């Protein structure tokens, strides 16, 4: 259960052309894909693709809810809910749900009391009652032990393993949440039964220990990773109001303060069949599969669509800057507001990012063919690697360029060189050769996406969820390929402006302290790394 930072039809153009014939090579060398779409009475959308090469089926459930929907003070709740969805239902993960209910209610009360008392430790004018904290902790342990008599640990996960499930996981992004597993094709009915049951009847047992697990996940991925901490601070600067400013995993005290009732409320608001796309790709019979899905998901009632209170980012007036010094590799990041996926201006900006970033090249990053590599890495030697991307998300996002400075260059030199290269897009638009390269890579990626059932399932779910129609896969590919040099020039001039951008500099502690402190003089080479 992990966090994917940016989901959506992201950086890559996906494309397939035509509707008929299982994925196969057509005469013109373009891949084809046949998709069966079925909408249930309750509004749940089902997409099916038959591929009989292997007796397996990739399953993918995608909900239109993500970290952008986290209410104030509850950042991270979409992700915490994703974790809780693995804790079982009224019939799974328990030998007696009725017996658990009063214990869980009691635990909610005990934790609320203890959390309130613990919060006093952090506030200057309040004094915690430490004896009360100790007593509550004892009561919590006792109640947890009581519930444990009825809990069947991680049973849902175990069942999937025993079915031969592969790639079992879920992820939460800013715009969506998805649950997936690849199964032997004769286990589809069990999948339908399990997934419908957890959408209809989840039980958030063991909530408080899972809350701690999520906080550990944050420590692992962000707090002990200087680059991730920097990216978090950068996003909180580049977005002043829009919720993309918040980390998907949540701010630390929000994670610690979220309670079970809030997660349940969030679940009830967003996990409706009419807010879900299911995609199945593999060795399946569409008619039988539709009947199975109808049987298990059909009875779940639709819900009125939730009111989404997403604050729009107001226009930026003036450049924003952020600097951090850490025990980390230095980097420079420059980001400009960019339009939402599907906006006509999004395509030329995505092409522009590919012109800068390039493709090909070997390891070491940066791409051997983009403008950034040729000018900053090879010619000027101010960078060791440089990348550009334009995020295509549900809401307006960022066009981002980042680079690692070469030893001889300061972050400021690199910032100036990056700026020059970005602004050059408006004066020296892409050549035919550059555009040809981008277009060919879009076509090739479209074909490569079809090499696995799971890849097809994810791409279809992305498009269907984002655009409301999986054919967006084709439209996106065509729109990207139709971008002209003049389109890029105009978009660059309009969007990549200094007065709207955010500049972030991550300095290395190594660069700001004397060399003598850097090197461990005690250990010679021979004993280096070995116990002293």
């Amino acid at each position: 259960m992990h966090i994917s930072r940016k989901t959506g039809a992201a950086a890559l153009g996906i494309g397939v052309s035509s509707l008929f014939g299982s994925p196969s090579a057509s005469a013109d060398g373009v891949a084809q894909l046949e998709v069966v779409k079925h909408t249930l009475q309750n509004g749940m959308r089902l997409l099916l693709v038959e591929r009989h090469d292997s007796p397996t089926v990739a399953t993918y459930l995608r909900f239109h809810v993500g970290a952008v929907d986290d209410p104030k003070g509850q950042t991270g709740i979409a992700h915490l809910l994703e974790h809780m969805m693995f804790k079982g239902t009224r019939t799974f993960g328990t030998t007696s749900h009725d017996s658990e209910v009063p214990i869980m209610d009691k635990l909610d009360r005990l934790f609320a009391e203890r959390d309130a008392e613990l919060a006093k430790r952090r506030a200057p004018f309040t004094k915690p009652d430490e004896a009360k904290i100790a007593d509550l902790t004892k009561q919590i342990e006792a109640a947890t032990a009581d519930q444990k008599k009825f809990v069947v640990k991680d049973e849902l996960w175990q069942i999937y393993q025993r079915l031969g499930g592969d790639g079992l996981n879920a992820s939460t992004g800013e715009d969506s949440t998805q649950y997936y597993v690849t199964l032997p094709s004769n286990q589809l009915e069990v999948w339908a039964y399990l997934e419908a049951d957890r959408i209809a009847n989840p039980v958030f047992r063991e909530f408080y220990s899972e809350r701690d697990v999520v906080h550990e996940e944050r420590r692992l991925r962000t707090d002990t990773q200087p680059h991730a901490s920097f990216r978090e601070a950068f996003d909180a600067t580049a977005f002043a109001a829009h919720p993309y400013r918040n980390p998907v995993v949540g701010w630390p005290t929000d994670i610690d303060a979220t309670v079970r009732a809030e997660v349940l409320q969030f679940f009830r608001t967003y996990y409706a069949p009419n807010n879900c796309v299911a995609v199945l790709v593999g060795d399946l019979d569409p008619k039988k599969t539709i009947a199975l899905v109808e049987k298990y998901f059909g009875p779940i009632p639709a819900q009125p669509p939730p009111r989404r209170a997403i604050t729009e980012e107001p226009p930026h007036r003036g450049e924003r800057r952020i600097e951090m010094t850490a025990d980390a590799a230095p980097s420079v990041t420059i980001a400009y507001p960019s339009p939402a996926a599907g906006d006509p201006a999004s395509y030329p900006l995505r092409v522009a990012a590919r012109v800068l970033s390039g493709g090909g090249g070997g390891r070491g990053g940066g791409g051997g063919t983009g403008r950034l590599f040729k000018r900053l890495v090879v010619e000027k030697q101010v960078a060791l690697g440089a990348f550009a991307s334009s995020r295509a998300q549900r809401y307006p996002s960022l066009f981002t360029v980042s680079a690692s400075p070469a030893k001889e260059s300061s972050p400021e030199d690199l910032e100036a060189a990056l700026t020059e290269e970005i602004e050059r897009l408006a004066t020296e638009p892409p050549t035919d050769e550059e555009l040809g390269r981008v277009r060919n890579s879009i076509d090739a990626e479209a074909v490569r996406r079809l090499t696995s059932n799971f890849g097809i399932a994810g791409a279809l779910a992305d498009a269907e969820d984002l655009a409301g129609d999986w054919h967006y896969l084709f439209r996106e590919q065509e729109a990207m390929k139709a971008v002209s040099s003049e389109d890029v020039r105009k978009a660059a001039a309009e969007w990549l402006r200094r007065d709207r951008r955010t500049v972030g500099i991550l300095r290395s502690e190594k660069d700001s302290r004397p060399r003598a402190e850097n090197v461990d003089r005690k250990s010679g080479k021979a004993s280096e790394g070995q116990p002293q």
Partner: protein
Amino acid sequence: MTTTLLHEIAIPLVVFFALGAWAISARAQESAADRFKGGRGDVHSSGFETVTRLKGEPLAPRFPEIGPASGAVERAVLSSGTVIFLKEDHRLPLIRIEAILRGGSAYETPATLAVADLTASQMRDGGTALHAAQALDDRLAFLAARVSVNAGDESITASLDVLSKDFDEAFALFFEVLTRPAFDPARLELARRRGLFGLWHRNDNPGVILDREYTRLLYGESHPRGFMLTPERLNAIGRDDLVAYHERIVRPDNLWITAVGDFRRTDVAAKLEKALEALPKPAAPLPLPPLPKATGAPRPGVYVVNRPITQSNIAVGHPGISRDNPDRYAVDLMNRILGGGSFSSRITERVRSDEGLAYSARSAYPIGDRDLGLFRATVQTKTESTGRAVALILEEIEKMQSGAISKNEFETARESVLYGFVNRFDDPVQNVVRLMRLEFEGLPYDWDRRAFEGYSAVKPEDVASAARKYLRPSDLTIFVVGDAAAMGKDLEAFGKPTPVVIQDFAPPGGRKANG
């Protein structure tokens, strides 16, 4: 938060066997009376019974095979001595080639360290006799062709992935990369600068430190996995070293090639035959030093790398086994129960699910390595709970080593392998590469079928005896990267911590502070 310990009721083995029905086709029909007996996980929910009713039989894996049959892989030996594996796959307009050679870091000494890696990277990045580096990159990118060359422990691999319409040109470029690299000095300098940058920042990530230092400690400094690259060594490598290395290993009798995709077998076989004719025929077999063999000597004790972070990165383990060990399938099932089976395993349940001490809590016991692998349980937990997490892991290893396993544990581990085996062969490219790999490693083509049969034959008592034999609590190394002062006392409970000082490289003279 703490909770009570798991109820580990180890039922007598007699009862255990009496429950019977180990064959995966036979479903356990538990009576209500059984439900409140049994070991860990043996009590199920009512939903589980519904699942048992709906569940399908395990599907037979489609093992890749060599032969003339449709769907099979064609194997041929070219006149140059090169072995090729071909499979037509017309579903998508794509062609993928993978080549493999003997070479890599396991054959290196401290004096030749990193030559294999740099040679591989510069074969790809340094241009060819016919195309300058930038021209090559530009052309491959224009064709959206992916070419990569990588050095591993015991092999060098090169691959091409291209749309079939551009195959002829990309194929020619790929063979230039493989056989006629130019090793452009400017590109080599860029790679060296990137390598140095990586060395200066090799201690930025605590997980990377743990993995590197734990591995070095257990393999020791005389094993290639214990060698360490330094800026001095990286600076000492010259273009000549790469040219000589390439000349030495890229030869037709040291090459295995697969091609899968939208082509006609005969066409590709002819193309490969022609491409390899140009290579000189070697007079004598390739001289390679023998591959290293780990001593397997344990390093029991507590080791600490001090880093100012809020979360400790912990590894607990000892030297493991290699792929020729006849007990390997039982060892794998045992490890799945201990910590390798994600949420169904004991360490994950105790450390993560029960106590909320970690996001990731697991163990690995590799069974597929030629040389001895390393058994290790790993966890990352906030500094304050370091001692608790170590104690839980030790307890679970000891309990696994000396106690019984439950019916549900055994069935879950076994079924997740046998029901899931079918997933291993769903990618035609990987299937063909797999056959090539097996031949390259000197293993039989039916290695995977034997594995399936091997797993199928494992009995519960085999798992129990594998635990007794292959988990050695007295040999355990406890290795922690974290805030030494803050967790010092907690760790002393497991033995006197030995500080491990890691070298921190820095750019000479520092980087320019301001422009």
